[in-house]
């Protein structure tokens, strides 16, 4: 089924909300910041969403037991509902709770809570573990809170496939929409910066500039969008995913073959030819080895198509990265800034190929068509 995006919500370092994000992505990438300046005990560059004040979007009640990732999710979820018109002034208007679902991609959903509570467990006593904080150690809790806050009752799911998760979550949403389990699904990815994540990147020497944020889309069938008069910003035309390992030893094992296969399957699923793709929005920029592998896969299928790298703006946002890639495509519909371009040049792209390379043999790709906006 061809699903359409009718609105989106963003919490990111380059902007909060769709319009602010679009303006931010059309300019120059902001410089990455110091982890130490952001309060982390590490000498590293990070892409911190320091501009995010959850109270501005969520009020100041009920936030105490929530971790940073959940706050990112809740704010982006609320923004997506309002940008799509499913809610207006915090009230369901063109949708309803019983027919709207929520799906989240997250690579590291529980780092903050486990980091905190293991310290209580070891340094204090197990009986001091805060029972209100304990649910945050469970991977689907941020998504569960989204349903509690907004009322998504049709379904709720959490996908953990690392860097491919944003596309895998959207593919899952397509399946749920196609089979009539929901009329609309708010779907996308979120991950947050935590002390454990920043320490892990330092230990492994992977030279990733870790980022944080949430990018969530209101996804629905074209028929549902038309029936409620919603603006279909973009159409999801097809997905492809594949898995491949070249050895039996490596733990981190990104695969050119897997991504090449995923790209070909996505083009086939979309009924699109290589020549129709105006722009590849890649995961390049995360780490050098992954970049080489990802570009090799893109080259194998689309050797001359322009390639962009939104991570130059956003850092590595892991489970949110592929969702941010789609949002970046929407932001660049009137032109891709030179700072984002890895090769070629592109003005007013219409057909996008989103590529996502997993660290563990998995890869996913997705074809997106940008539509002319009503306003």
């Amino acid at each position, binding site marked *: *089924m061809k699903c359409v995006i009718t609105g989106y919500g963003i919490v990111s370092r380059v902007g909060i909300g769709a319009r602010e994000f679009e303006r931010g992505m059309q300019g120059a990438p902001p410089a990455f910041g110091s982890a130490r300046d952001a309060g982390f005990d590490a000498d590293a560059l990070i892409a911190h969403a320091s501009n995010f004040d959850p109270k501005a979007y969520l009020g100041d009640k009920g936030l105490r037991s929530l971790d940073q990732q959940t706050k990112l999710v809740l704010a982006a979820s609320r923004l997506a509902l309002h940008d799509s018109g499913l809610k207006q002034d915090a009230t369901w208007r063109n949708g309803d709770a019983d027919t709207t679902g929520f799906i989240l991609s997250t*690579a*590291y*959903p*529980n*780092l903050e809570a*486990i980091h905190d*509570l*293991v*310290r209580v*467990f070891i340094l204090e*006593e197990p*009986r001091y*573990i*805060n*029972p209100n904080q*304990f*649910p945050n*150690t*469970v*991977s*689907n*809790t941020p998504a*569960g*809170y989204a*349903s509690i806050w907004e009322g998504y*009752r049709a*379904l*709720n*799911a*959490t*996908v*953990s*496939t*690392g860097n491919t998760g944003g596309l895998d979550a959207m593919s*899952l949403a397509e*399946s749920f929409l*196609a*089979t*009539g*389990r929901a009329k609309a699904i708010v779907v996308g990815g979120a991950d947050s910066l935590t002390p*454990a994540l920043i*320490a892990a990147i330092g*230990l*492994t020497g992977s030279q990733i500039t870790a980022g944080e944020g949430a990018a969530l889309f209101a996804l629905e*069938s074209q*028929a549902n969008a038309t029936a409620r008069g919603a603006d279909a910003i973009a159409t999801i035309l097809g997905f492809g*995913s*594949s*898995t*491949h*390992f070249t050895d*039996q*030893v490596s733990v*981190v094992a990104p695969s050119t073959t897997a991504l090449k296969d995923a790209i070909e*399957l996505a083009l086939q699923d979309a009924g699109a030819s290589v020549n129709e793709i105006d722009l590849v929005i890649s995961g390049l920029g995360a780490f050098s080895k992954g970049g080489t592998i990802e570009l090799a896969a893109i080259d194998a299928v689309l050797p001359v198509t322009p390639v962009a790298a939104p991570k130059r703006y956003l850092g590595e946002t892991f489970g949110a990265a592929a969702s941010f890639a789609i949002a970046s495509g929407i932001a660049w519909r009137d032109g891709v800034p030179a700072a984002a371009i890895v090769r070629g040049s592109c003005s007013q792209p219409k057909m996008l190929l989103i590529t996502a390379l*997993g*660290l*563990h043999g*998995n890869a996913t790709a997705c074809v997106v068509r940008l539509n002319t906006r009503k306003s």
Partner: protein
Amino acid sequence: MHRVGPHRVWVTGAGVVSSLGIGRKAFGKALLAGESGISRVRAFDTERIGRHYAGEAHNFDAASALTRDEFARLDRCAAMAVAATRQAVEDARLPTAENAATIMGTTMGDAVLLSNLEATWITKGLASVNPLDVKRYSASRLSTEVARSIGARGTSLTLNAACAAGNYALGVARDMIARGKADVIIVGASEVIAPLQYAGFVRLAAMSPDLCRPFDANRQGILLGEGAAVFVIESEAHANARGAVPLAELGGWGLSCDAYHVTRPHPEATGSIVAMRDAIARSNIDPSAIDFVNAHGTGTKYNDLAEAIVMRDIFGDRRVPVTSNKSALGHCMGAASLLEGVSCLVTLETQMIPPTINYETADPECDVDIVANVARAAKVDILLNNALAFGGYNAVTCFAKPGALPAPLAMEVNA
């Protein structure tokens, strides 16, 4: 690849790692015998936590179940999943898994590894943390390592759906095949017990001091368990083409979200009722066709009351037999509903319903037909497997004897 559905979906093989045995035959025999997999916790010291029992798979030997490379690479959650996968592929006599997708469910994955890394950081300093161990921590590895173990090249997906994760994985996989998006899928779930989780459930006042007594008036809460269950599922055409013998057909599945509380089910079970009605409707049957319900049955009052409400709402005065495998296995969290799915296969094969053990005192608020303490012979052609979870997740799957379900409904309602 894409062939227009709807396609019938067969289960053609299953593998199990559990406190009640390794392999579906041993597991089924122990369940029907009313054995308990509960024992004093050996994996970690429970003295400071104040509770001491769980369903650990003491008989799982990762070194003998895995290759040397896998044993070096994998932590316990993925190791159990890979071992169960090999069993399932062998049970299904699947000659090659190259075209298979892999979908796995879990609550936490190998979060024990994460807790151990944090513990090293706290007690010995960050410099003592092994970078290779850091690289090993990733939730996505559960499904990709399963794919790697059998050379599967299709979609690889890990779903975190807390204690309904097994049903989520099975349901998503079932729909992929029914829609013609895949021919064969390795679908499973795996979970281990971490000290932090164990202590957390104690702090939620949800952990029993001794036994798990679902639906009993004197229940005292859950016991945790661990294990993995993996199925091979195929389209009818794919199974027939290779002469596979189906163990069961998968009917439609239902899901919903309570949107009520992060740890407790809705007191009126509204979401759970929606999910069960959806599973029945999507199986193209009505409630009168259901012969048995394998309950979520955690042994907490909130859960038991919610499930009793669901049974009354769906089946009215008809007393459909209910059992809880968690009385014997403990609550294996993300793996629970697929281990219980294997129990469903056992029931369809043997026409015996495993007992809810430890049941002594009827709870007047849970007026359901418990299969208490001793396995019951029953004609079971079609059954439901119920799951509820943190986050307000509800998911219900349907298993049937091959040929018992009517033709599947059209899947693509939003073409």
